[in-house]
């Protein structure tokens, strides 16, 4: 438990300081814990698990600035996971939402299980990306998918570098909102 806290925390702190390898490691390890967490709670709808893992990873990315360095990392992670789970169950039925509301804080104290067998999600976030307007979609495709620099993306699209950065930032938030809306 403490090991998990320390490893995850160390890699997120490195990531927030600009280490993208540490960031990939953080997201991969978080994904494994999230998968185990959701699998245990979505026994009757196992095919929702990977969708929710991906949605939560996107939320971790979009909300990474809310991790305050004085707080413990695992409660932060699980509070986001639980928020996403309640969101899903609320969309499915009001009765199931109450079932989850009962076990409010259990996750923070539970022994962290991990499941590192990533599957493919049912919903394709890449298809959802196509629904975004160009000013959001193009920066994400060029920088985040094709790995080009912000300067190259600005050159290719005729946007300013600042607009490319804003486009990535807003676009990923919009992608999260669309994913949660279209459930």
């Amino acid at each position: 438990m403490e090991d998990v806290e320390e490893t995850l925390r160390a890699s997120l702190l490195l990531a927030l300081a600009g280490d993208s390898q540490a960031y990939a490691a953080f997201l991969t390890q978080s994904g494994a814990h999230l998968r185990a967490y959701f699998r245990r709670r979505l026994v009757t709808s196992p095919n929702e698990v990977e969708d929710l893992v991906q949605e939560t990873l996107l939320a971790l990315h979009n909300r990474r600035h809310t991790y305050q360095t004085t707080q413990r990392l695992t409660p932060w992670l699980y509070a986001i996971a639980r928020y996403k789970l309640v969101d899903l169950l609320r969309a499915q039925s009001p009765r199931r939402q109450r079932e989850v509301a009962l076990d409010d804080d259990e996750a923070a104290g539970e022994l962290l299980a991990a499941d590192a067998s990533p599957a493919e999600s049912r919903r394709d976030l890449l298809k959802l990306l196509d629904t975004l307007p160009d000013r959001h979609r193009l920066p994400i495709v060029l920088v985040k998918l094709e790995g080009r620099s912000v300067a190259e993306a600005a050159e290719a699209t005729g946007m300013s570098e600042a607009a490319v950065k804003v486009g990535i930032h807003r676009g990923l938030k919009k992608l999260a909102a669309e994913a949660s809306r279209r459930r």
Partner: protein
Amino acid sequence: MKTDALIAMLARGDSRVAPGAVDRRLGATVAAGLALALVAVLTLLGPRADIGAAARLPMFWAKLIVPFLVGALAFAAARRLASPGRRASAAAALAATLLAVVWALAAFDVASAPVAARGHLLLGNSAPQCVALIALLSLPTLAALFVTLRGLAPTRLPAAGAAAGALAGGIAAAAYALHCDEMTLPFVAVWYVLGMAVPAALGTLLAPRWLRWA
């Protein structure tokens, strides 16, 4: 899409975040809200006519300190509740203690006054406009705090809404105190507190719908 592909996509490029984003954003919103409330009070309502003389009396400062403490505790709560996985129990307990102390001191004032003077001590001359103006002055800050909080990640929505409301109320009440010429603690204990309670209740009620983020 494979989850590994999503992770590779998210991790690619610059993911740096300067530390202290929560405090910076909330702080900027509070500064703007306070500036707006002060300008509104000083231009639309005007400072009380005797503000120079009144500033030498302790009661003038007591009327500012109560909203200031409410606002400070609400800020402490809001900055914790803006991050997932944190509670604000200590700030809530301190706020309850503050209220209890203010009410106890006010009750002592009322009890030690002659019976004939008690009504005026509690009601003053401006109770209705005090509550209405504090509540009204708090609304722009409350709206701005909701926008800021939605860009952060509150997961206990009613609590975060209550903290935002109390913070907006504290700012509004502190600004309003520059206009208001009531000079008794019982008046503050009842009507200022009620004025701040309105946005706090409003924030609590609106939060489940308006603080949701995806």
